[in-house]
């Protein structure tokens, strides 16, 4: 009993449509439309491009002059940027987990992505980080409980893993388990 197929009906391919009006819930945000990278004007000097090419090359483990989608965020970080994972996903056209692991980007395609991140407004500075952490300064004494900070980092925003948090907080808590957040932020911004 062969299922009745209608050969005349054209199979409509479902395109990854950009989400309509964003829902007000804080749950993983619906995918925003991908950025139009061809419209981005790349404004790097020749020297900068060489630096970027070198960093890019360090991440190419295959030797095809490309890097995997899941390496893009790290290359940008290596180059001094602090993109959120959401920003990077948007640049990559909201890839699936499979895409992230298997799709690759060549250097020329990477440049407008980097330019977009560099151009993005609202980049956080020292004060932004300090203010963000000050929210958890219950006693208003310049410190936050390391334990509380760990919980915030692992439950809010773009959750961090325990390993990431351990690496981040290594040596930052005093004998009472408190973190002086201004010093912490200075330390973070020094690299």
């Amino acid at each position: 009993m062969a299922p009745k197929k209608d050969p005349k009906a054209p199979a409509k391919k479902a395109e990854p449509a950009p989400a309509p009006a964003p829902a007000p819930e804080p749950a993983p945000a619906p995918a925003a439309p991908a950025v139009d990278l061809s419209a981005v004007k790349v404004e790097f000097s020749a020297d900068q491009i060489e630096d970027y090419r070198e960093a890019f090359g360090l991440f190419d483990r295959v030797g095809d002059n490309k890097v995997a989608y899941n390496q893009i965020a790290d290359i940008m970080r290596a180059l001094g940027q602090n993109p959120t994972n959401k920003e990077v996903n948007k640049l990559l056209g909201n890839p699936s987990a499979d895409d992230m692991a298997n799709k690759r980007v060549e250097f020329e395609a990477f440049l407008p992505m980097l330019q977009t991140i560099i151009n993005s407004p609202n980049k956080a500075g020292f004060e932004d980080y300090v203010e963000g952490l000050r929210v958890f300064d219950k006693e208003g004494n310049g410190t936050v409980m390391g334990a509380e900070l760990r919980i915030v980092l692992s439950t809010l925003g773009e959750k961090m893993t325990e390993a990431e948090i351990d690496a981040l907080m290594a040596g930052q808590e005093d004998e009472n388990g408190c973190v002086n957040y201004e010093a912490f932020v200075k330390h973070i911004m020094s690299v």
Partner: protein
Amino acid sequence: MDCHNQEECSRPQEEEDIMDIPLDDPEANRAAAKIQAGFRGHMTRKKMKPEDKAEGEERQEDRGQ
């Protein structure tokens, strides 16, 4: 926790703080994401530093295979 009477027990400060975490607040989540982005940037750069040469060498070895 060794609580002698109910009133004093209302002071498990860390537990209160935990309950205070605004899991559903978009503002708080946005702020957290920014902080986390900064932290991740820092950690990647820190990892790259001594690894710079090692990465280069490793890469050459990989290519040699």
